[in-house]
């Protein structure tokens, strides 16, 4: 009996260390931690307010911009599953880029158009439209060529920071399911971004969420679109395991 228990413990420990330090828990989407009202809002593609951004992104995707006179659709025909493999290394610059940064890059280099800000409506709308086409599919595994960035992202995640001296894991691994003021603490997965957040009354990026968390523990936040947050985004992609994307997610 006792040896069985030990075996079980060993199995739990092994699966935990394989799935990116989530403890014994299976990855669960932030969706599972929302009230049924919020879940209903996300489930209905019509009611989901994030779809306002998806709609707008669809229009922008087909609108020619800049000196090239090209629209996104002139180069990109099929975007299904594309959001699964971001952040990824851009072959031109060698930089790690989130989907939004790739859109910004395309816009200035390939379309030769005026830059768009990271958290601007067009950036969120295009990211939501492209993300929506990967909804239901899991993230792609992180390739070995991104090992250094992945390691840095993981280090930031586990780094204690701010006046409260907390790392991400203190809430999103050790205190999952507990209440933080009016919110139930989730496992902190990034599979729904851009999300529509009821508190923001708007769509927002994962970087905005990370900034809010950093401000929450009274740490010095990084810029939206910073290398650090993109590396954390990469680590979160690996950490989410087989969790399907659900863009645009609705969160409290």
């Amino acid at each position, binding site marked *: 009996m006792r040896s069985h228990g030990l075996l079980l413990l060993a199995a739990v420990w092994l699966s935990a260390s394989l799935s990116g330090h989530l403890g014994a828990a299976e990855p669960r989407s932030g969706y599972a931690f929302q009230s049924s009202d919020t879940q209903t809002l996300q489930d209905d593609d*019509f*009611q989901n*307010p994030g*779809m*306002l951004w998806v*709609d*707008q992104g669809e229009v922008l995707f087909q609108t020619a911009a800049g000196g090239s006179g090209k629209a996104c659709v002139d180069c990109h025909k099929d975007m299904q599953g594309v959001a699964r493999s971001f952040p990824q290394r851009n072959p031109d610059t060698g930089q790690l880029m989130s989907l939004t940064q790739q859109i910004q890059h395309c816009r200035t280099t390939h379309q030769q158009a005026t830059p768009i800000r990271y958290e601007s*409506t067009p950036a969120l709308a295009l990211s939501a439209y492209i993300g929506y086409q990967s909804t239901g599919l899991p993230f792609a595994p992180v390739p070995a060529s991104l090992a250094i960035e992945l390691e840095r992202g993981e280090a930031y995640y586990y780094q204690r920071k701010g006046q409260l001296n907390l790392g991400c894991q203190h809430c999103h691994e050790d205190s999952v399911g507990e209440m933080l003021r009016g919110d139930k603490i989730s496992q902190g997965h990034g599979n729904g971004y851009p999300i529509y957040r009821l508190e923001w*009354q708007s769509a927002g990026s994962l970087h905005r969420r990370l900034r809010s968390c950093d401000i929450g523990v009274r740490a010095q936040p990084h810029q939206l679109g910073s290398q650090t947050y993109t590396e954390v985004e990469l680590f979160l992609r690996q950490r989410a395991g087989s969790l399907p994307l659900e863009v645009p997610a609705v969160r409290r």
Partner: protein
Amino acid sequence: MALINTRISVPTQAQANTLVEIKTLVSHPMESGYRIDYMGEMIPRNILTRFTCEYLGQPVIEAEFGPGIAANPFMAFNLLATTTGELVFTWTDQHGEVSTETRTLLVVDP
């Protein structure tokens, strides 16, 4: 007017004398006018004040919005389908600017 886009759900067709559900979602900040920005300045109020829907020239619903309504207002209501005809949706903002959308409700006899 800051109506970036509107989403309207009308059934593709309805049976005569049945209730059909109409849903609308519009993007609008619905800024209450009670908030201050990070510089301590008041953010001016910017809200929609009125929503109406007409079916066959008759009002189906008229709603007045105040500053307590959340951003991106969602409306759902039922109407009794009688004959094929036009649905006219209007949103009016606090400056009196009006945004209008129309849809055709196709009604078939059972």
